[in-house]
């Protein structure tokens, strides 16, 4: 068994079997991470470059740790402190790096489609670590892994995705993945932050009422407002957003059932999520971060294991 794709550009390109394979393999890597020696020699002949054209803490560290735990050689590149700042094009930068015999490229870029462009022009395998407002596949995979770990299933699970659906690559990757795996999805947020025709395009439910979504769901995945991607005011103020769409403990207390709270980070406390909810007993936010390493190890292992990637 192997993945049906050479690259991991988005959940859109994966089959249900691919997703299942990555999640199962991630479970085995999670066990590796509990051992006294948390490292396996699988990718010791593989070199990976982390190309980050956009700021990142969690994702970059998670990828780097995953690569090191697989014994790969790791190169790091941050656009802000590199020749990209001197005007070099993306393709030139990558071709220069690849001429140093690099096998795999992990890339984050603020332009949607940047990794897809690269995939057409270079021979190395590419892992998308987030491209603009398009996809963030490893985040969706680790979210699914965490949901499955917490609730025991994905199929039939009711997941509400709350917040800035329009600008969130996490939301899009999550919607693709959850629909492929047979979960039910409801998105909720201000009308200005939810794309039109989402219901028809992806088969998800849409609501503008956060209480309705919380009452309906088993899992609430709360997203950050992506202010850096909004070039016009889409709601009046963060305070007003919090009043209308922020998740508060009192709302959860009124549900009469327990729901799981997730957030891909970084959290803006007091905006989309109040502190007592983020740190509460139903929050699995830090488990998501922990699982991220195992899921990324699985994705990298399965991609590097394809013989055409060498």
């Amino acid at each position, binding site marked *: *068994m*192997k993945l049906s794709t050479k690259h991991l550009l988005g959940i859109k390109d994966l089959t249900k079997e691919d997703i299942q*394979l990555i999640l*199962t*393999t991630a*479970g*085995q*890597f999670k*066990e*590796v991470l509990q*051992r*006294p*020696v948390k*490292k*396996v*020699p*699988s*990718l010791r*002949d593989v070199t990976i470059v982390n190309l980050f054209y956009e700021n990142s803490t969690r994702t970059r560290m998670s990828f780097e740790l995953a690569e090191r735990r*697989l014994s790969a050689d790791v190169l790091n590149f941050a656009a802000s402190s590199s020749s990209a700042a001197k005007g070099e094009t993306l393709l030139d930068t990558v071709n220069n790096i690849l001429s140093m015999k690099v096998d795999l490229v992990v890339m984050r870029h603020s332009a949607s489609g940047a990794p897809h462009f690269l995939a057409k022009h270079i021979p190395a395998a590419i892992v998308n670590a987030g491209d603009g407002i398009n996809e963030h596949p490893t985040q969706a995979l680790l979210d699914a892994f965490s949901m499955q770990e917490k609730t025991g299933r994905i199929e039939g699970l009711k997941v509400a995705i709350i917040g800035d659906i329009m600008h969130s690559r996490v939301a899009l990757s999550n919607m693709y993945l959850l629909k492929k795996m047979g979960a039910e999805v409801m998105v909720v947020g201000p009308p200005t932050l939810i794309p039109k025709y989402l219901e028809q395009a992806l088969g998800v439910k849409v609501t503008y009422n956060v209480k309705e979504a919380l009452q309906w769901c088993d899992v609430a995945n709360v997203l950050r407002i992506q202010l850096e991607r909004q070039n016009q005011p889409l709601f009046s103020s963060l305070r007003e957003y919090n009043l209308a769409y922020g998740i508060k403990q009192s709302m959860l207390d009124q549900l009469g059932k327990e729901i799981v709270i997730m957030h891909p980070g970084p959290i803006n406390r007091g905006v989309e999520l109040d502190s007592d909810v983020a740190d509460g007993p139903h929050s699995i936010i830090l488990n998501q971060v922990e699982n991220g390493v195992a899921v990324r190890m699985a994705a990298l*292992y*399965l991609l*590097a*294991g*394809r*013989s055409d990637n*060498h």
Partner: protein
Amino acid sequence: MKTILSEQQMSLSIQRLAHQMLENNPNMTNTVIIGLQPRGIYLSDRIVAALKAIIPGQSFHYGKLDITFYRDDVRKTLHIANATDIPFSIEGQSVILVDDVLYTGRTIRAALDALLDFGRPSKVSLCVLIDRRFSRELPIQPDYAGKAIDAIFTDKVKVNWKEKDEKDEVVLV
């Protein structure tokens, strides 16, 4: 297809292997049995059951090890990992690795690497049901063997288990 061990012979061999382990360590003190995924665990399950029948009341640790991530042929063929379950320390223990067939020795090489990541055992020995002699690519030999056979590399030795393959037997395919 040629039968190497019948169901009855297999059962006798497994009983003998368990007795040989007890010969070396009568109470299984500080001894740990580790079955290798995926197919070694059928043999280790049987051996552990046999040991428990012979020395009831004696407890010893039994774990399962998957060596997929330690293989030296990741780039040739992608293997899918199985569960590893070693919920105890092997530090200072005498470990008996259990697998169904010993062939080139590469699986055991990987298993030794994997095992050492769980701690430093005082001793590691190897138990297999079938030892394919003269096929080794590494200097690895079994301490306990059900049956040694001479098979050429085009032959395939298949160990069938009731739990998985409906019937206990070892055949040459």
